């Protein structure tokens, strides 16, 4: 009975102080942020070049745009590749994506159709797809410091025409203080 009355008192006291009371924890809100360097359109016809390369700058501070208040920290957790507007789904590609000179991921004889859905560089179920620690570490540090990086996409060993649009997306978790 004492615990019962105590619980009732808790309810009454809780109501009395509920209004205006700080109910939120001190843990930050975790938001999902992302940035894309812009779609990379690839149109390669015969005679095919020996190598195709394109570079773009990515301002990683834009990952924080998902937050409407100050971001305490940012943590990189994924980079994905997706291909659409693809009229050559059976064409194969080999090459790499490099960030500030460090190889991030290499592709070996992969059909462009493999990327019809968003694929992570860390996916282990895709044959011919391999991430590289050096490039990942470069990206981790760049995102932590919110700086601009250069992503270079290189396609080589081209044997078939390629007409598609490549989308690269960098993901980070944003830690926003609970106010």
């Amino acid at each position, binding site marked *: 009975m004492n615990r019962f009355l105590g619980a009732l008192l*808790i309810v009454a006291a809780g*109501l*009395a102080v509920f*209004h205006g009371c700080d109910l*939120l924890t001190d843990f930050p809100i975790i938001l999902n942020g992302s940035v894309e360097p812009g779609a990379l359109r690839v149109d390669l016809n015969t005679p095919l070049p020996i190598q195709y390369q394109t570079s773009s700058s990515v301002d990683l501070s834009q990952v924080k745009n998902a937050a409407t208040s100050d971001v305490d920290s940012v943590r990189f957790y994924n980079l994905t590749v997706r291909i659409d507007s693809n009229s050559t789904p059976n064409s194969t590609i080999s090459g790499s994506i490099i960030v500030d000179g460090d190889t991030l991921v290499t592709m070996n004889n992969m059909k462009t159709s493999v990327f019809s859905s968003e694929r992570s560089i860390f996916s282990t179920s895709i044959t011919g797809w391999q991430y590289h620690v050096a490039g990942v570490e470069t990206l981790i540090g760049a995102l932590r410091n919110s700086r601009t990086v250069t992503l270079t996409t290189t396609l080589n060993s081209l044997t078939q025409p390629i007409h598609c649009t490549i989308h690269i997306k960098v993901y980070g*978790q944003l830690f926003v203080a609970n106010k």
Partner: protein
Amino acid sequence: MNAVPANRIITLLSAIVLVISGFQTIAQAQNPIEDAIQQLNSDAVRGYLQPMVTSVGADLNSGVFHSAEITDGISLKLELIAMGTLIGDAEKMYSVTAPSPFNQTPVQSATIFGNQGTIVHGPVPGIDYQFQNGQLKLSIVPLAVPQVTVGNFFGTQAVIRYVPIPEVNNFPKSTFFGIGVRHSISRYLPGVPVDLAGSVFYQKISIGDLMEEKTMSIGGQASKSFSLLTLYGGLQLESSTMTLDYTYKGYGAVGQPHIHMDIDGENNVRATLGLGLNLIILHVSGDVNFGNVTVVSGAVAFGI
């Protein structure tokens, strides 16, 4: 008659507004709770919010009765009912899976009432994924509602709850409404030494067009009076459902994917045990309710 102090009424009504504000924060404005929820896909949000849906539903389904005696004659009572669902460790964790390509083995992480979200390590040192942190530090989820009970005609009384909140400063028009019927069973069993009654009760909270929670309960009650004291109890079947609408902004969101879903409360059966004090037109009562969650409630009523 001792009037309830005006500031106490204001505090309790403020609690109603604050809880409804809690729903509103989920439904619309920029705020930590809404931000947290928008990062969750439909699977994760169900587990993350489940304890809150259950506790609010359990709160709403409480305090409907404080006696099983329904004697024919004019009866009118204005009540202020406060209730609170206790939050235990079971309400602070849920099972969730990290997005691919992280390990797909489910882990336990924090609900909205929990602590820090669990961290899952990725394939490279420095690559981690953290689940959403808990946002509400509550050991009890309180609620307060006004209630009018009117009857008793042919052993029947109506129970009504209603709180209208007009649109104010981008806070959408909101409504809390409940209606139910209680009927005396004792009138058919005059030899039974205790009063018996049954009830059906329906409630709905609507926040604009974005969110609502509905509850329904069916119960049987018994009570026995000893001078000024009434001992009462009951068994109740109940349900609660929260309907959510929000834009998903988490991993893999393409465009502005909209999530519309229903989350059912987990409190479906309860047993109630309470005690009331009757001072002519002032009635005070308190009870504890045992089910999937534990709810305590108290009421102050004026009337006959």
